[in-house]
Each structure stands twice: as structure tokens, then as C-alpha cells.
């Protein structure tokens, strides 16, 4: 477990390039563009150390927290630290407990969106609630920001996510905060 703000900042500049879908009418292309500039890979694609620094492991693109990395409790941080992430940036510890980034790929067994309709996906980002009406999505998912996309943009993101390569990866349940 490390405190990785510099890592985050550098990772943000190491996103996969060539996403230039401005003006395109293809929802999938536009979705790819939005996913890239929206920094979705920062948390939903495991970070690995590369020769030129940290970057997303695109062989596991958007598959969430790797199931083989076991996190069994919160970070237990000394003051004034409040939150921490593991080196993949897929598990976060804070006052909410421990959250794990979701598997956004269309894997029929482990993908979180496998039961989502397009409408539910849009509403999830609008309301911050699972399937638009259920449990709250945990921090640090920036849904208040992402939820300000237009309907068409959110639908494009959904269209893109539905056709990326599926990755079988069962993300663990969140861990409640210590009482």
C-alpha cells in the first residue's frame, strides 16, 4: 500500500493516445474518445510500471480491480492521511471503507454492466446509484462530473463499453468502514 498522488498525476498523462473522435457520429468511436479523456482507465484499468513509468495495462483494459490481488482491510493511515490506493489504482481506502473499481467489460459472468440497460447506465451516472436507483456508488468514482455529460455522450460510452474485449475478472465486494 502506498500513497500515490504523484503516481496518479503521472498516470493521467500516460493514457492511451490517438483518441480523436471529435465530430464523429459513430457512437462507439465517440465513446472510446470520451472514456479516454474522461480518465476512466485511471481506475478501471490496472496500472503497471512500464519502462517509461506507470501506465495502464491495456491487455486488461477496463476490467477493474484484479481478482488475484487480495485486499482484506482498510489502509489504517496515520494522520493527516485520509485515503490511499494500491499500486494498480484499482482499490481505494478511505472513510467509506475499501472500494474496488468495477469490471466494465462485457464479460457475461463478471462484468458489472451485464444486467444494465442503456437507460440504467445513463441513470447510474446521473444519480450515483447502482442501476440508477439502487445502492450508492462508492468514492472515488467521479459520477457528479461524468453525470454532466449529455445523454448522447453517455449512450456513446455505453455503446463503446458493450463491445470492448470481455475480461473475466470477478471484482471483490467493497469492505465496510471500521466502526
Amino acid at each position, binding site marked *: 500500500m502506498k500513497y500515490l498522488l504523484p503516481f496518479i498525476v503521472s498516470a493521467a498523462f500516460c493514457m492511451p493516445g490517438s483518441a480523436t473522435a471529435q465530430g464523429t457520429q459513430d457512437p462507439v468511436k465517440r465513446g472510446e474518445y470520451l472514456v479516454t479523456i474522461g480518465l476512466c482507465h485511471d481506475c478501471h484499468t490496472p496500472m503497471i510500471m512500464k519502462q517509461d513509468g506507470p501506465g495502464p495495462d491495456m491487455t486488461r483494459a477496463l476490467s477493474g480491480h484484479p481478482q488475484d490481488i487480495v485486499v482484506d482491510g482498510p489502509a489504517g493511515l496515520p494522520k493527516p492521511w485520509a485515503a490511499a490506493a494500491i499500486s494498480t489504482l484499482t482499490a481505494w481506502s478511505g*472513510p467509506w471503507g475499501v472500494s474496488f473499481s468495477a469490471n466494465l467489460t462485457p464479460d457475461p459472468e463478471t462484468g458489472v454492466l451485464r*444486467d444494465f440497460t442503456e437507460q440504467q447506465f445513463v441513470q447510474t451516472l446521473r444519480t450515483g446509484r447502482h442501476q440508477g436507483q439502487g445502492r450508492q456508488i462508492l468514492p472515488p468514482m467521479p459520477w457528479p462530473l461524468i453525470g454532466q455529460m449529455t445523454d448522447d455522450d453517455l449512450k456513446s460510452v455505453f455503446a463503446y463499453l458493450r463491445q470492448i474485449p470481455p475480461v473475466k475478472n470477478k471484482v471483490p465486494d467493497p469492505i465496510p468502514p471500521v466502526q
Partner: protein
Amino acid sequence: MQGVLERAERFRPARRHRLAAAAAALALLASGNAIPQTIKPPQTLQQTGLYADFATLRVDPDHLAFAPQYPLWTDGAAKRRWISLPPGTSIDGSDPDAWVFPTGTRLWKEFSFAGERIETRYLERKADGQWLYAAYVWSADRREAALAPERGQRGAFPFGNGRSHTIPGVNDCKACHQGSRSEVLGFSALQLSPERDPDAPHAEAASGIDLRVLIEKGLLVGFPQSLAQPRIAAASAAERAALGYLHGNCGHCHNESGPLSNVGLFLRQTFANRQAAIASTWGHPVKRPAPGQSPDAVLRIAPAHPERSALMQRVASRYPALQMPPLGTELVDQEAVGLLRRWIRETEEHEEIISQPKGRVP
């Protein structure tokens, strides 16, 4: 940034501390409303027209008080409710499961804890057909009520152990109210039936109008006379009350016509399908276990085994990832938990229904 701090706080049920600040910084989030409401509500409750005399808080006598027979659990809040229809208008009840309210319809619901008014929620149907959502927070001296922030307000009334009543934001209002075909939830045929369920949890005395009066006064038109005394078809008193509770507390999201219909859990009682609640729960496999659900809870309701019933575990929890309903409540409804446990222990009666879902007609 403040929004991030508030959200982080929601996930820590007991102790208060300031650690969320750094979490917010790491999260790199921005605050803001996901769906700004385009129509602006009045700034005060007084401006909504609830009262004929605000100085004495005398409610306008033209408004109609009502009390649903299966009230929504809000952590023990005492509630009062009123509806106002514009003069000369009526509700279209030709679809008995989804009434259509005229433009200008207004509804209020007042919430009190420990005898003190805390908030009053407001719905108004605008000319474009949309409903306006607002909540008003009562001042400490209970003399004024001002519009609550669009994102809601925590800490409106303390329950102890770090929990408190939350005044919902507009998005959370819509999460429930836009979950089925009618955005008005507690003002419906079953909820206003003259034949009230004496075993309903937290049953309130019948007050004001009911379905029969609405029809007699011409305020509800097109509603089939044959359905004017609706009653839940049930094998026992406990089952009737349990299904009614699930209707009033869960059915606004879990129904056959709303955005969550693909979940396949139908707890809203409808005239179109009166067996859906039992058929979609009793012996029905869980579609996807929720975080915190025990591994042996593989059925939504395990006949005779409430402890292994997923529905029971979720209703009896207030861990945010597991609890049901997922919003609007901080405290377990122990009376309802007791009722649901009794009902689930009654087992054999439902075997026929499971095999022949449409076999029982009221």
C-alpha cells in the same frame, strides 16, 4: 469538492472525523448537480399554497388530506399528506394501475420526528407534464420552512449512534418517484381502498378521502367500478400485510413497468398481475448477490427460512451496499422485519401459487 466530502461522509456510519478532506483531494472530483431541475420551485413552503393562514399554520380547507394504508417507512416519522386538484379538474383513472393527474395537481407530505415538524415535501404537475420536486426544511422554531438544497441535507434530525434523518435531494426523490408509470406513489387505488388492512405495519387511521369518496365527488373519473374496493389477494392476514408493506416500500422501484423491470422482482401490486409479488420472490433464485449478503441466501425468499432469504437480509440491514430500500431510511423497520419473518415461516400455502402463478384470483 464539498460534494465529495459529503459523499465520503455518507459511507461512514458512525464516528465523525475530518479524514474525508484528503480523500476528496485524491479523488480529483468536482462537485455539482448531475441533473439540474429546469423548473425552479418556490423558495418557501408558504409560497406553495399549502396553508390558508401561515401565521397559524392552518391548512387550506380546500386541500384534501389522505393517508395511504401501506405507508412508506421513514425511520418512524409521523406524516401528514394533502392533495390539491385545480377546480373543475379530475384524475383520469381509466388505467387503474397508473392514474393520470391534471396539470396543476399539488401534493404535500409533512414529516415530524418526536412531535416536531422537520420537513415538508412537495410535488406539482407543471403544464409541460413534468413534475416539480421540492423539499422544505422547517426552521428551529418550526415557524418557517425554506427550500432545501437541490442535493438534499443531512443531519436534519438526530437518531443517535451517528445516524440522522436526511432530507433527500431531487435526484433521490426521482430515483423512487420515477420508478414506475405514475410519479405519484401513495395516492393510488390500493393505497386509498375503503377496505383498509388492519395489520399493515405502522397503519394510520383512515383520514380524509378514500377511493369511494374520490369517485363520488367526481375527482376520479374512468376508474372501473368493479375495482372500487381493492384488496390484496393473500392466503393469510400476515401475507396480506407483508405484500402490502412490500408494495408501499419497495414496489415503486421493483415493478413490471419501470426502469428496473429487467431485475425481475415485482413487488408492486397491480390489477394487471396480482400474483407477481409471490411468483417473483417465493423460491425464486437471487439474480446477483448484493455485497454483504450471506452465501446461503440463494433465494429471494426461502420458504420457511427467513434467515436464508435474501429479501429478509436486505430489509433487515442498513449497511449501505446491502440495505433495502437503498435510500430514504437509516434505521431498520423492526415491526416490518417481524412481520416479514412471520410471513416467510408460513410456507406450504404458496406451493400452488409457484406452480400456477395465475391460479388464485381475488
